[in-house]
């Protein structure tokens, strides 16, 4: 049988409903056009998806940077065909036997197509080889458990071995609760690996994207030689809700946003998404020839 289209089906259902003595409004309306338009959570503007894609998922009316997935991020950053994923299959066991965790992870895997909340890769930016790690906030809030910590640590160790620069995009709610204390230990592990990279003279560029909080802010994300942030990104240690509950008052506008961190001296530059690739490329160029020889 030939597939009937939406309006044909709707007309048929209305007819059926009428015969049963029901009203037209009981018939389902067209589903919200999720795939065609994107609504900006900041200003409410509705933008055709095609425009949004061309604008790199930045709202054309208010400049809100929509969180984007890890693969999309990498496709914006790396030269075409240079992407080689690292440790793609790495996952961690549910060591604490946390109830419901396996199902939750499975659901996240289904909905994102990712194995874990970070994608690490080797690739090229303007023909210079780099190692990248990109957290994906769509996978369990980009939270860091053993697998995320391990992949980031391996990426940093790979950077130590090869001398390639490391570029890391953060987007995370912090440590993953379901892996308990082991998640906390990933803060120490990743920070230790980055300290080694620094010791070895390796270049590490950290990019804060919306939102980055908790154990990720308090570990590898804050240890960059250079720290960039996307405009408006929420960046903090404690989440806004926790602070409000602790101090019992509303937080001022713009608190913990990228601009606030810039003002307080914790970010080198705020870079709009459209200029991130060229900015990173410039930093790589600036580190190409190893400056003064230490005497």
């Amino acid at each position, binding site marked *: 049988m030939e597939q009937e289209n939406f309006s044909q089906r709707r007309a048929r259902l209305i007819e059926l409903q009428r015969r049963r003595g029901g009203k037209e409004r009981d018939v389902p309306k067209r589903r919200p056009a999720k795939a065609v338009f994107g609504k900006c959570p900041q200003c409410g503007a509705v933008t055709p998806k095609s425009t949004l894609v061309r604008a790199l998922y930045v709202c054309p009316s208010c400049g809100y940077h929509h969180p984007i997935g890890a693969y999309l991020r990498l496709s914006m950053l790396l030269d075409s065909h240079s992407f080689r994923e690292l440790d793609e299959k790495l996952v961690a066991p549910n060591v604490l036997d946390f109830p419901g965790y396996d199902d939750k992870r499975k659901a996240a895997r289904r909905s994102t197509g990712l194995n874990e909340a970070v994608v690490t890769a080797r690739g090229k930016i303007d023909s210079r080889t780099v190692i990248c790690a990109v957290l994906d906030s769509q996978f369990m809030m980009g939270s860091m458990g053993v697998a995320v910590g391990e992949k980031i640590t391996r990426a940093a160790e790979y950077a130590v071995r090869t001398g390639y620069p490391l570029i890391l995009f953060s987007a995370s709610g912090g440590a993953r609760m379901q*892996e308990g204390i082991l998640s906390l230990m990933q803060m120490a592990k990743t920070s230790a690996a980055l300290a080694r990279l620094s010791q070895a003279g390796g270049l590490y560029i950290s990019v804060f994207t919306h939102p980055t909080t908790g154990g990720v802010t308090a570990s590898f994300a804050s240890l960059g030689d250079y720290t960039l942030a996307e405009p408006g990104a929420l960046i903090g240690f404690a989440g806004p809700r926790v602070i409000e509950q602790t101090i019992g008052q509303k937080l001022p506008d713009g608190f913990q946003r990228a601009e606030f961190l810039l003002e307080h001296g914790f970010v080198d530059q705020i870079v709009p998404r459209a200029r991130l690739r060229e900015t990173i490329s410039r930093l790589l160029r600036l580190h190409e020839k190893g400056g003064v020889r230490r005497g």
Partner: protein
Amino acid sequence: MAEYTAAQRVALARHAGRPGTADYICALFTDFFECRGDRQCKEDESILGGVALYHGRPVTVVGHRKGKNLTENLKCNFGMPGPEGYRKAQRLFRQAEKFDRPVITFIDTPGAYPGLEAEARGQGEAIASCLALLSGLNVPVVAVVTGEGGSGGALALAVANRVILLENAVYSVLSPEGFASILWKDSSRSAEAAEVMKLTAPDLLRLGVADAVVPEPEGGAHLDPEAVFSAVDREIARQLARVEREGRFAQNRYEKFRRIGL
């Protein structure tokens, strides 16, 4: 060991009479010289640290301080440091490396303070830098979790060659209340959270997070502090001697944390 539920241990770990960092410094060390201030903007009393003699040899000692009464509690912000406290700690860690003396830390904090000023001054950066610095420190580091080991604020002082826990101390990714509130949107289910979080000393020993557990007297450390002091002293001395025998302090510490959870 006495059989307590996780929630009971949490209560014991938070007990107001439980010996704190200041007590351990008094009991285990001599000639303590307190160092104050982060050299940038502030003195944070929730971190207590300085130089002292441990069995006659100089060591750097740093720990969380909660205070013994309400006035002290307020001054110490109930043991919740701001970035200034962690920057003071970093200063002391660097000093320890410069003068080639071991670091001994005492952990007892609900967590780093979640406040306006703390955020504005870079709480995240301060903790991250502590972790990075401690991980590569070329002297022995021994940490003792004496009460509450709350989240990143505790870990910042606990990237150590050996982590010793008191029997009723707890160490976790977040307070049970915060955990219940995040996962179940209900902070009153903290007792249930404590059970599933695996935050007690025996659990942590099994997970490889703790290296040794010091038994406490029946009913908790506050009932017989003297016994606890000498037991903790023995364990620190034993672990410190082992760490020094093994050498390669930074390398071994790196490998220790590299292994956890895999």
